[in-house]
């Protein structure tokens, strides 16, 4: 009984009942999936009723299952931009968004399954034209016009599932310093961390920057020549300096968000402002 490593095991799932599987059917994701970095072991199952979809079920948390489909079913010319290795199969994640929009697939972040090494990896096709929300089944309204607003569903470990309307997506054409590849963000707030906001990456939802109004920290903060208060909002990025709760704010490089849903991080020339301005002291024990 103690040596059951490669023998059968049982997974108790809320959606599919009990699934028995053997160790050599387990795919290892050394980096998890975007937003689920802590989940490393999955099995891939198929149900007759939902073919050609497959289901990727987490062994560590069997309540988590992703519907997948081979992108070739949707776009015969789908490519990840480089040849696939032997025994490597791409799959994309399917999300049932809502009744109006139907079902979307994340064509931009496919999962590559290596069926000989039994490993999986979710990659991001950064230069491609593929969408995170490719519509599988479009529903049209009475006039035959496809709705233009779409929803992007983000799975985040910190904030749960976020359904982001495309209207709320902020485009940072140059990214943030050190994160130049991330171009799309959403600004959210949660009660427990008010008055801070969170700038969460759409492309990599595990990345979220805490932001704060600079004027909460320094009522005289001066952005005079760099920003237009009638069309822009300004924030500074907050860093947790140590586990004792000391925080600093980057007053030197504020993030500006404009009414047209674009954003950028700028660097102020003034030497007056520090990238590591201390907001508070460590809590005394």
């Amino acid at each position, binding site marked *: 009984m103690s040596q059951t490593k490669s023998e059968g095991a049982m997974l108790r799932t809320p959606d599919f009942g009990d699934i028995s599987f053997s160790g050599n059917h387990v795919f290892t994701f050394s980096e998890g999936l975007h937003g689920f970095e802590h989940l490393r072991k999955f099995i891939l199952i198929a149900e007759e009723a939902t073919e050609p979809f497959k289901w990727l079920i987490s062994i560590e948390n069997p309540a988590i299952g992703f519907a997948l489909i081979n992108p070739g079913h949707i776009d015969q010319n789908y490519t990840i931009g480089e040849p696939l290795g032997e025994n490597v199969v791409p799959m994309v994640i399917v999300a049932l968004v809502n009744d109006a929009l139907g079902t979307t697939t994340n064509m931009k972040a496919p999962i590559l399954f290596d069926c000989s090494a039994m490993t999986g990896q979710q990659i991001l096709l950064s230069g491609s034209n593929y969408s995170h929300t490719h519509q599988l089944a479009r529903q049209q309204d009475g006039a035959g016009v496809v709705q233009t607003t779409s929803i992007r569903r983000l799975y985040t470990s*910190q904030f749960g599932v976020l359904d982001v309307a495309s209207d709320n997506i902020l485009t940072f054409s140059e990214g943030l310093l050190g994160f130049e590849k991330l171009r799309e963000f959403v600004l959210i707030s949660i009660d427990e*961390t008010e*008055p801070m906001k969170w700038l969460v990456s759409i492309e990599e939802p595990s990345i979220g920057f805490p932001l704060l109004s600079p004027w909460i920290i320094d009522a005289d903060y001066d952005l005079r020549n760099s920003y237009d208060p009638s069309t822009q909002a300004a924030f500074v990025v907050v*860093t947790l300096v140590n*586990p004792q709760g000391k925080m600093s704010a980057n007053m030197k*490089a504020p993030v500006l968000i404009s009414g047209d849903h674009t954003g950028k991080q700028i660097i102020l020339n003034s030497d007056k402002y520090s990238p590591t301005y201390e907001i*508070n002291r460590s809590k005394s024990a």
Partner: protein
Amino acid sequence: MLVLSRKSGEVINIGNNIRITIISSDRGIVRVGIDAPKDIPVHRKEVYDKIIEMNKSAAKTNAADLRNAIGNTFAQKTEE
């Protein structure tokens, strides 16, 4: 990397609208004047490095840790 020797007062042009003037050089410290269009940010490299470092350390902030840190920092300053 292109390496050029310049004397004090001499100039290097980059493209049509960026001008680097060597102002002085004294005991290892070179003073440089830079004329560039407003939309081209010019900063010391250390500034970029520091901002990248701060962004990276902020990027994966844990919400629960942040909540604890916020504690009474902003709202309830009356609390002990």
